[in-house]
């Protein structure tokens, strides 16, 4: 069981590197620390995963039951986090936000001090936790390797921002440490600590540039996440006092279904509160605005927040809660909010031309789909949810990094400026093409998962979510394909672009693209040998029901090969076939390079076609408020119902 000590190492090591980074003054040493740290984490998490895979997952193990020292450290950490939040809130005169930190921290500290001594496990390493470790470890460290190179270019390009890159990298490391802790811990107290830790890290990352916009957005992210944290704490305290006096997360998951017959909806209240917390973290409506605001930060933090970690923390919790949400009112509302977010965010993505905003909206929308899957909570939809999460993490991380790298070379991240990117930055364009294809095209991962989600929803007889998905996925294809079209469009600019991408960044692209393709090819294998048993485990759904049969999955792999092979073969054969080049039809005289025409005054006019955006109808300003209201109403209704039931029961008792 020495193997399991990898977990405390993975949690503590990033914090150690963070401290080293903060104390190393010169950026060159810092860069070295960061690179080495990231590689160590990458290798450790991968090796840990493989070792665990070989040794098997014995779920009956109770790991780290005696952790007095760690408990004290975490208690201290909680108070430290609260102090940081309070200090910054006072500094920027956002006093009320500090209440969202003080009250829950006080409550959880009180709970911890008064709780009866019990021997619970603190680390929980089932397949889901290990999958998250792998995901965070690989994608997270690649992002850090990328970030080291990126910040170099960023500070050359943004002179107005104070160069605090070591602080930035330190925050990224702390974030990773917190994530490792979050996905492996089995104590509810620890869960709260790591939860708050990610919230505060993201708050600091968003505020990195210290511009007014960044500060405002970071506080918005802070209060929304702290609100979620408060709900989490309420849920835990409620659970402890009403349902079962224990602080074990595993017991939490297993006991609620047993309690439901006797105390009814009361047992669901902590589930709802926890799911509510997850909704804030996953930026679901009505809390989506913080993630859009997070775009002001330098790209690596957006990448880290959006693809691999922060937002996936919410999904992780929801997957854990999925068996508790199946077929009850909590699940229905979570499913509704998720479906609505999927549809609304994909509409809003259409109106964006800023590449990072498109990515942000698409992330929110895909998270919505995952949330809906988890909310419906049948083994089929959970299966789809896990795959959505996997494919999304890799594709989206790749896309975010590419947009950042292209922005550093092109000095723009407007999709309209990517017109003909294939001719300016061919490598980037190719990677971007693969990344986008992975997001929506058959038979790549995301589409397969979407398909299985659709099937799962149909099996769960949830018409509303089915309708959300069919409309949402049509719109999703639209905004991705118009972006793809821009990449390969005939260029109308002759300006030479200097490629400033560093080796580390390129390396990260290659790894991401390879992982993505490997995942697509190994899809049936991953499903059969890992995700299947994971969902069938006692702590999750107890049985597995893959949405796709193994036969279909192999057909998909075959199709994937065809999608690459056929164009390639045809390209090679067609290259040698005689075909006469003609100038494009322009309506006027083509100037010769298909870029423009000579108008009736004899002047050359450069002409190109911009994409459809429908800004007058689908802008965030127009759509966000009503959608938020709708989601808020749904949450409010269920909140009121649950509150009323709780009150009536308490009244009845008294």
């Amino acid at each position: 069981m020495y193997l399991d000590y990898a977990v405390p190492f993975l949690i503590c090591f990033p914090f150690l590197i963070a401290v080293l980074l903060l104390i190393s003054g010169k950026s060159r040493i810092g860069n070295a620390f960061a690179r080495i740290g990231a590689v160590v984490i990458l290798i450790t998490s991968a090796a840990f995963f493989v070792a665990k895979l070989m040794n098997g997952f014995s779920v009956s193990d109770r790991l780290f039951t005696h952790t007095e020292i760690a408990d004290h450290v975490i208690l201290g950490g909680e108070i430290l986090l609260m102090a940081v939040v309070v200090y910054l809130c006072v500094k920027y005169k956002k006093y009320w936000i500090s209440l969202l930190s003080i009250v829950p921290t006080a409550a959880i500290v009180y709970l911890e001090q008064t709780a009866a001594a019990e021997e619970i496990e603190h680390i929980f390493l089932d397949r889901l936790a290990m999958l998250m470790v792998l995901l965070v470890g690989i994608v997270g460290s690649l992002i850090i390797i990328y970030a080291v190179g990126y910040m170099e270019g960023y500070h050359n390009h943004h002179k107005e921002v104070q160069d605090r890159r070591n602080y930035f990298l330190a925050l990224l490391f702390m974030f990773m440490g917190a994530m490792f802790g979050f996905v492996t811990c089995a104590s509810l107290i620890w869960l709260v600590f790591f939860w708050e830790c990610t919230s505060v890290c993201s708050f600091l990352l968003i505020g990195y540039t210290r511009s007014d916009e960044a500060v405002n957005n970071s506080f918005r992210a802070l209060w929304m996440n702290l609100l979620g944290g408060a709900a989490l704490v309420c849920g835990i305290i409620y659970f402890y006092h009403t349902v079962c006096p224990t602080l074990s997360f595993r017991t939490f998951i297993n006991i609620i279904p047993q309690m439901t017959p006797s105390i009814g909806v009361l047992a669901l209240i902590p589930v709802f509160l926890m799911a509510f917390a997850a909704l804030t973290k996953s930026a679901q409506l009505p809390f989506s605005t913080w993630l859009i605001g997070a775009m002001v930060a330098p790209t690596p933090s957006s990448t880290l927040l959006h693809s691999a970690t922060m937002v996936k923390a919410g999904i992780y919790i929801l997957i854990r809660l999925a068996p508790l949400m199946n077929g009850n009112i909590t699940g229905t509302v979570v499913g509704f909010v998720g479906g609505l977010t999927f549809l609304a965010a994909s509409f809003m993505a259409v109106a964006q031309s800023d590449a990072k905003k498109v990515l942000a909206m698409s992330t929110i929308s895909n998270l919505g789909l995952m949330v809906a899957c988890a909310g419906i909570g049948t083994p089929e939809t959970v299966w789809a949810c896990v795959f959505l999460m996997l494919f999304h993490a890799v594709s989206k991380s790749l896309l975010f990094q590419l947009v950042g790298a292209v922005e550093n070379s092109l000095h723009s991240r407007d999709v309209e400026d990517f017109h003909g990117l294939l001719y300016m930055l061919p490598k980037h364009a190719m990677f971007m093409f693969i990344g986008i294809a992975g997001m929506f095209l058959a038979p790549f991962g995301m589409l397969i998962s979407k398909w299985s989600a659709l099937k799962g929803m149909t099996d769960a007889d949830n018409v509303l979510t089915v309708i959300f998905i069919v409309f949402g996925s049509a719109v999703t294809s639209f905004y991705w394909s118009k972006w793809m079209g821009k990449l390969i469009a005939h260029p109308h600019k002759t300006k030479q672009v200097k490629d400033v991408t560093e080796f580390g960044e390129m390396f990260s692209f290659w790894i991401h693209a390879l992982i993505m393709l490997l995942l697509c090819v190994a899809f049936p294998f991953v499903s059969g040998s890992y995700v299947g048993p994971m969902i069938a485990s006692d702590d999750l759904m107890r049985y597995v029901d893959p949405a796709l049969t193994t036969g279909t999955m192999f057909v998909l792999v075959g199709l994937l090969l065809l999608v690459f092979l056929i164009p390639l073969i045809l390209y090679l054969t067609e290259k040698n076939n005689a075909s006469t080049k003609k100038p494009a039809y322009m309506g006027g005289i083509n100037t010769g390079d298909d870029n423009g025409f000579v108008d009736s005054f004899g002047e050359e006019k450069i002409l190109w076609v911009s994409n459809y955006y429908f800004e007058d109808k689908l802008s965030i300003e127009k759509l966000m408020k009503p959608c938020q209201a709708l989601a808020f109403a749904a949450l409010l209704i269920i909140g009121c119902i649950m509150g009323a039931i709780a009150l009536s029961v308490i009244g009845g008792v008294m």
Partner: protein
Amino acid sequence: MYKITRSPWVMHYDGSSCNGCDIEVLACLTPVYDAERFGIINTGDPMQADILLITGSINTQNAPVVKQIYSQMSDPKVVVAVGVCACTGGVFKDCYNILGGADQVIPVDVYVPGCAARPQAIIDGIVKGIGVFQERLEKLENGTLKQEEKEDTEEKKEED
């Protein structure tokens, strides 16, 4: 030898004209004359056209346009000049900006006279053009078409 005589697709270009012939060209497609009986389709896209139907005369401004449209068409291709303006310049011949008929800038295969040309005459002209079209295809497949074109352009250069 493959017969391609049944599917002549037409692209219509209008130069300097009174638009009389254009109306007649469109009349060909109406139910009364029904040019589609012969497989004639008015495509409006040079990439897809076999026969370039020119009405109106060539002026200094549209000369390069006509040349380019002609060059955008795929071989084998045929040019039919419809109406007296496209044949010779017609009433516009002596205008300061008029170069003359379509044959001033591109090789014309069939001349359809008339002011305006009647639909029957236009359809007849297209059908005559089909014959040339078939001949050209044979030359294209023998490989002589490109050769001839090359010689033509060389001759033209010498003339200039």
